[in-house]
């Protein structure tokens, strides 16, 4: 089929659209683990992360996106985590990061 080239391609909008995103899963996750809201995004978890130094996995980004209702790919990303627990040891806010990783996988397994 012939396609007309308009000189640009339409890609998924980049903006996080909180008018459209469904925060139901995000709310569920935060209800089970309210401490995740205490994240100040210091990046310590990602800095120590062994999986993160070997792949594009970024724990902080994944859980932040999930909290914004951006679930696409979160499960697959979280599956790169080795659950070693270094992140929990460095988190200045005392967040149970291993628990967060497991929780996100559990809640988003069907996405």
């Amino acid at each position, binding site marked *: 089929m012939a396609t007309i080239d308009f000189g640009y391609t339409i890609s998924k909008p980049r903006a996080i659209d909180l008018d459209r995103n469904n925060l139901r899963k995000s709310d569920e996750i935060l209800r089970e683990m309210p401490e995740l809201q205490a994240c*100040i*995004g*210091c*990046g*310590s*978890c*990602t*800095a*120590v*992360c062994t999986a*993160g*130094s070997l792949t594009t996995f*970024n724990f*902080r*980004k994944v859980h932040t996106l999930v909290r914004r209702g951006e679930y696409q790919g979160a499960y697959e990303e979280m599956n790169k985590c080795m659950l070693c627990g270094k992140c929990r*040891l*460095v*988190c*200045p*806010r*005392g967040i149970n990061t291993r628990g967060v990783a497991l929780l996100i996988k559990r809640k988003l397994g069907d996405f």
Partner: protein
Amino acid sequence: MKKTIIIGSGVAGMQTALCLAERGIEPLIIEKESEPGGKLRGWHVLFPSFTPAEEVLGELRHRVREQGIEVMTNAEAVGLTPQSVTLADGRQLTGDAVVLTSGFTLFDARIKEEYGYGIYDNVFTSADIERMMAEGRVTKADGTAPQRIAFLHCVGSRDEKVCQQHCSRVCCITGVKQAMEMKRLFPGAEVFNFYMDIRMFGPGYEEMYREAQQRCNIHFVRGRISEAAPTLDGRVQIKAEDTLTGRPLRMSVDMLVLLVGMRANDDNASLAASAGLKQAPSGFLEPRDLFLRSTESSTEGIFYAGTVTAPKNIGETLAEASATADAVAKFLEK
């Protein structure tokens, strides 16, 4: 003549004593160290004006001497009541009121083992840098000049892993100040500040931050360093996430400076217990009221000035000490 015992001879203690003496109340300062002056001793210059610390401290000391205010050194208070202070050697001092100006303790950076303080030669604390500057000799461990320096904010502050939840307030601006001084000493060096949040709360601070960024070309990276490791050539490799790009960052530096926070004194608990004072969860002592009676303790006749209640800068401490003297005078008039 009424007499007031002041515990601690830092800027808060000296300023309180001077203001009380002006009002005709006899102050007695007790100091556990062998020399008066508190934490400001050994500090180089003060933010945001780069005023030499000695200018402030020297002036206070001079006036204390001039007024003939008694300073008892090597005297550690272990218990107190509104009318008396018990010293570690068993002596008991009596007076009509007590002002607690015992300040804070610097966070021991060795506790954050992953930053390597006390393990690797080229990891320093902000207090070390200040001392080196005051001594006029800032170098790497091997005596050479650093080419690349990293400052890490919030070491022992806002960190629940070391049970210090509070913000120490002054480290952000200290980091900016020391970075600028480093740049002045070593114009060719690259200077990085790793931070979680930058809190520029005082007059002139924000301007100073901008100057550091724009004029001094100091790099600010938003991300907390997670680990430091030695490199074969004796430098320090640090790891952080550059959270603004969302990618892990690693770099080697010649000096890693840890901006250590202010934490509550360990003996606050026993002092509080001896006099029925209230201690906040952070370990600092809690004033009777945060707004209208912020210089009074929960026990009548015991007062606070300075960082014994919370982290403060020098200006705030001096202002509070005057207010405390005022409150003490009013109390003694009764």
